[in-house]
């Protein structure tokens, strides 16, 4: 079977083409989805890409969250469809309340762009099963509002339930609480990640290919389903 992974384009998305390319390199078929179209064309999974949807007006992801395509994505994510939100996509997932917490201005106030080391702390989600538990990977990170915050109770619950998917190593680039780089929902089908695995899928254009695992994980999960 061919696995079809939708990639949503919002006005202001930047990394939708790179996400499509990562999906293709992983062996799946990328399907371009449009923010104004409620129809997600029976895709098996959805990636919400990085960028500055709606110019980050109001708050990052706040307006995208109410776009027609998100009505369908939110409903199907609640029914178990795998969804990966990268960077701005992570912000959209938090604004949609599919994931807890929020992403706020970096504590340094600077936009940060670097190759970032991460530890995969939950290799059991739909998007991380091709990694080893506690595997260390390096992928690009680029954000101005990537500081993950949540109240202590929520942070404790995320840790206790193993929902911290990835944590920053060596450097905390944005002041995220407890060095959190990515989290999942309770079911593990929805993952939000601030760094960009889709930029680390080919040696020519990234720091390596250690980001590809997010996309091969979903392929393997869907083929075995």
């Amino acid at each position, binding site marked *: 079977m061919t696995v079809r992974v939708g990639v949503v384009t919002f006005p202001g998305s930047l990394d939708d083409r790179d996400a499509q390319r990562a999906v293709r390199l992983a062996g799946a078929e990328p399907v371009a989805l449009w923010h104004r179209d409620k129809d997600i064309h029976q895709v098996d999974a959805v990636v919400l890409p990085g960028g500055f949807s709606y110019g980050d007006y109001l708050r990052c992801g706040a307006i995208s969250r109410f776009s027609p395509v998100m009505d369908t994505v939110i409903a199907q994510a609640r029914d178990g469809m795998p969804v990966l939100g990268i960077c701005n996509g992570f912000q959209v997932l938090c604004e949609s309340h599919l994931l807890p917490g929020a992403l706020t201005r970096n*504590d340094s106030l600077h936009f940060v762009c670097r190759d970032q080391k991460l530890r995969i702390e939950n290799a059991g989600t739909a998007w991380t099963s091709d990694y080893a538990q506690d595997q260390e990977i390096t992928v690009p990170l680029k954000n101005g509002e990537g500081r993950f915050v949540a*109240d202590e109770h929520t942070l404790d619950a995320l840790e206790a339930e193993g929902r911290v998917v990835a944590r920053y190593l060596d450097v905390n680039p944005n002041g995220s609480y407890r060095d959190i780089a990515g989290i999942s929902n309770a079911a593990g089908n929805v993952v939000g990640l601030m760094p960009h695995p889709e930029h680390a899928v080919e040696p020519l254009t990234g720091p390596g290919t250690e980001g590809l695992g997010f996309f091969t994980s979903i392929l393997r999960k869907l083929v075995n389903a």
Partner: protein
Amino acid sequence: MARVVVDVMLKPEILDPQGQAVQRALPRLGFAGISDVRQGKRFELELDGPADEATLARIREAAETFLANTVIEDFTVRVEEEAK
């Protein structure tokens, strides 16, 4: 016809690095004695009709679901002017 103002502020426990940067710049410009700055957003909503209780309830709903992210922000709603 009325104007309703919605003020949105980061919750006290959420770090406001922009406010801190403003606070640090003030003494350099000669404005002394300001110990803290918090930066927020102000929305001015012009209504077609009067700001009655039902309308204000809808505006509070809009503030809670859209204008503010209540995970990190608090908001207040007030009627600024009731035109004659």
